[in-house]
């Protein structure tokens, strides 16, 4: 007992020291007893993390046997359809790894499937964070770090795809070179610098190897550590519910419950990926053959996460390549690649700050939004997803044309229009759906849940009996606050409301919050109750609506 207290004292001492010097007590304490809320969508980040770990493990195995060299050699391995071919050391060693090293092919396939799952999980995780508003203060910086991680993940995947030096990787690098060359003015210099001279040359394989196994993984690992560190410091967000506030976290402690669960989940992720890798072939480099600049195969596609850029290039009309004064400006490549990447990354990084301008809200948020309660944000998110998916479809246009027996030209013509029309429609429809769901929630909070039981009143009218919600159930439906468009006096950083920024802020705020459903106020619930039998009367919503909206306003906090 006494030794226990000594330990405690020492620990407290260290804790105080750390606290004083670095404000670290939060972290140390926080880590041991950190509470993790439980929800399946919070495990998406874990899937991402675990597939990254799997990539590190299998990738290390692969480096033992892979030869990063463009030197020529004659293939003498067991795969007959390549017998006697002149190939690069890189390709030959990848084949050896696939055919002659025990477990090598499985490792290659686990590595590649894990890469596809990793990037996919990153995107899904990002979508979760976006649609629930988890990027709001204080997590904006972590969102930005996440965005950088997503970009690096794509580059990491691409450099890996290029290493085996098979036909597809060669085609991919060639396109990458074209993308670089299309950058005005500096393009050709960058290309020469990257490839150590004229494309493809001998240098790029060892260079890409270093980038793929050392540079990017190290940077990503560091960023992931910072990312998780932030998750711990900020504490995890939670979905709204009874007993959950902006100031607490309801869930399980990290040790031991969550750690055990997370450890188990790692093996589930590993198991699923290993199962897929054991059953399904991926990147059959032996079938693609060695890289040689002349051949191209039908269905030369990049891995899926680059597919949207490939799709953008396929949609871009060719006449956008401009030649003047002996120079060629390849806007047809430059716009759908470099410009789009910069635009998307810019929008991604800027989003939390843009939304902050619209809300004028500088408070911290630890309770997540239900997506329906942020209709404009949700609409914008679905719009972005639609845009992305359309580009993705365009990237596979030849495969789709072949399988569905359509004309590739028709698909392209359709997508050129759809790319601008469908996202806009998606935005409007999503927003409407969100508002509709909010109205339904409102109804439910006031009148209870529909039971499906129809009763005939004495005077002959039929009504449906509504069962009242418990207070706990109602809480989830009414807890959110509703933002309203900013009035001049609302602007926190008052200043001159007629500055350019001030007008922009009000315009943005109007765009975000003009359409809204007023939240249910306690007064309304009271009124619904005092009407006697809750929910049996259709009228009081209509009556209550206008009057209580005013009460709603006075209770809504503004920035």
């Amino acid at each position, binding site marked *: 007992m006494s030794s226990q207290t000594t330990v405690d004292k020492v620990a407290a001492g260290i804790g105080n020291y750390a606290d004083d010097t670095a404000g670290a007590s939060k972290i140390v304490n926080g880590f041991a007893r950190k509470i993790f809320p439980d929800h399946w969508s919070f495990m998406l980040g874990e899937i991402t993390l675990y597939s990254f770990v799997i990539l590190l493990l299998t990738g290390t195995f692969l480096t033992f046997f892979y030869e990063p060299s463009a030197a020529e050699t004659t293939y003498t391995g067991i795969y007959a359809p390549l017998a006697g071919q002149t190939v690069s050391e890189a390709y030959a060693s990848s084949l050896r790894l696939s055919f002659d090293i025990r477990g090598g092919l499985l490792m290659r396939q686990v590595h590649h499937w894990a890469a596809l799952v990793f990037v*996919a999980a990153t995107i899904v995780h990002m979508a979760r964070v976006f649609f629930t508003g988890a990027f709001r203060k204080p997590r904006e910086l972590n969102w930005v770090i996440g965005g950088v991680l997503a970009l690096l993940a794509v580059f990491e995947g691409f450099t890996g795809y290029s290493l085996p030096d098979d036909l597809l990787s060669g085609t991919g690098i060639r396109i990458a070179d074209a993308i670089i060359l299309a950058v005005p003015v500096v393009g050709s210099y960058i290309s020469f610098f990257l490839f150590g001279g004229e494309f493809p040359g001998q240098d790029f394989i060892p260079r890409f190897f270093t980038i793929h196994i050392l540079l990017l993984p190290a940077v990503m690992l560091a960023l992931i550590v910072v990312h998780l560190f932030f998750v711990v410091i900020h504490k995890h967000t939670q979905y709204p519910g009874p007993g959950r506030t902006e100031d607490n976290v309801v869930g399980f402690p990290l040790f031991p419950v969550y750690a055990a669960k997370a450890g188990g989940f790692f093996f589930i992720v590993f198991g699923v990926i290993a199962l897929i890798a054991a059953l399904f072939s991926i990147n059959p480099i032996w079938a693609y053959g060695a890289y040689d600049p002349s051949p191209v195969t039908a269905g030369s596609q990049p891995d899926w996460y680059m597919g949207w850029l490939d799709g953008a290039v396929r949609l871009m009309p060719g006449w956008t390549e401009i030649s003047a004064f002996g120079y060629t400006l390849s806007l047809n490549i430059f716009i759908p690649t470099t410009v789009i990447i910069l635009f998307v990354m810019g929008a991604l990084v800027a989003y939390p700050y843009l939304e902050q301008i619209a809300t004028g809200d500088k408070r911290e948020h630890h309770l997540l939004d239900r997506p329906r309660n942020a209709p404009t944000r949700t609409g914008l998110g679905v719009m972005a997803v639609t845009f992305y998916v359309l580009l993705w479809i365009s990237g596979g246009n030849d495969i789709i044309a072949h399988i569905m027996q359509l004309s590739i030209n028709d698909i392209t013509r359709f997508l050129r229009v759809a790319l601008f029309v469908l996202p806009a429609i998606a935005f409007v429809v999503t927003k409407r759906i969100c508002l509709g769901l909010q109205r339904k929630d409102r109804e439910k909070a006031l009148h209870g849940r529909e039971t499906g039981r129809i009763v005939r009143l004495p005077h002959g009218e039929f009504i449906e009996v509504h069962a009242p919600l418990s207070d706990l159930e109602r809480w989830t439906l009414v807890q959110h606050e509703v933002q309203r468009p900013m009035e001049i006096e609302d602007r926190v950083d008052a200043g001159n409301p007629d500055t350019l920024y001030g007008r922009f802020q009000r315009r943005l705020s109007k765009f975000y919050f003009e359409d809204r459903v007023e939240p249910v106020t306690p007064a309304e619930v009271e009124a619904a109750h005092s009407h006697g039998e809750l929910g049996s009367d259709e009228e009081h919503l209509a009556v209550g609506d206008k009057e209580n909206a005013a009460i709603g306003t006075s209770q809504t906090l503004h920035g």
Partner: protein
Amino acid sequence: MTRTLTALSARRRHPLAVVVLIALALLLVGGLYAALAPRAAEASTATASADDVETGKKLFLANCATCHGLNAQGGGVTVNGDTAQNPGPSLIGVGAAAVDFQVGSGRMPLAQSGPQAPKVNKIRFSQEQIDQMAAYIASLAPGPAIPTEEQLDVSTVNDEQLARGAAIFRTNCAMCHNFAGKGGALTEGKYAPSLDEASAKHIYEAMLTGPQSMPVFNDTTISSEDKTAIIAWLTQDEKRPDPGGLTLGSVGPVSEGLFAWIAGIGLLIGCSVWLGMKSS
């Protein structure tokens, strides 16, 4: 021949009956012409006899002349002011190989209009009849012959030649037919078909004659031995194993990506939801 005629009589009321009737009427004239006219060239099929050419011509007039012209000179035959909807090209000089390929794969006689003549499984002619028509076309002008047994014999191809064939395929064919011969889309609804089902003879003939959008690969572009090597690689599945497991259609990263999302992410999210349910 009889079979064709029976089929024709059964379809007397068919809109095309008039066309066919006229063709039949012309058959006699045509037959006479063929018999009297000097031989344009030696039929390249060694076994073709004058009889075969004769029967072939009759078959041609009955089944093909509406689109390819009475003397295979191309352009449709005009009947009562109606021109054939799909006038075909001249067949003079296309050779026996082209006829054998087109009719033997069911592409000809062309059934419906579309971006390109599709391969049809139901072949309307016996091999003998096809050979006869081929002999007739070959008799008009020299052209690529039907490949010999020897040219199609893949048993002599060794590994190194096989590898060479595979490499030539990747350089010359994969851009349209995909690296594994699974086919791919071309412009405006045209497509390079999957080669999974193609017979050795048709592969050889396709290279020789370059059907539709496909270029011709004559013996100076790809030597006869190399053609045999390509066939060896394409037709012997056991020589090009897929050690990685199920191939998801061998169409490249598109199906892999789709699979990673649907099966990979789908399954993992399923597990997350399941675990999430367990705890609450």
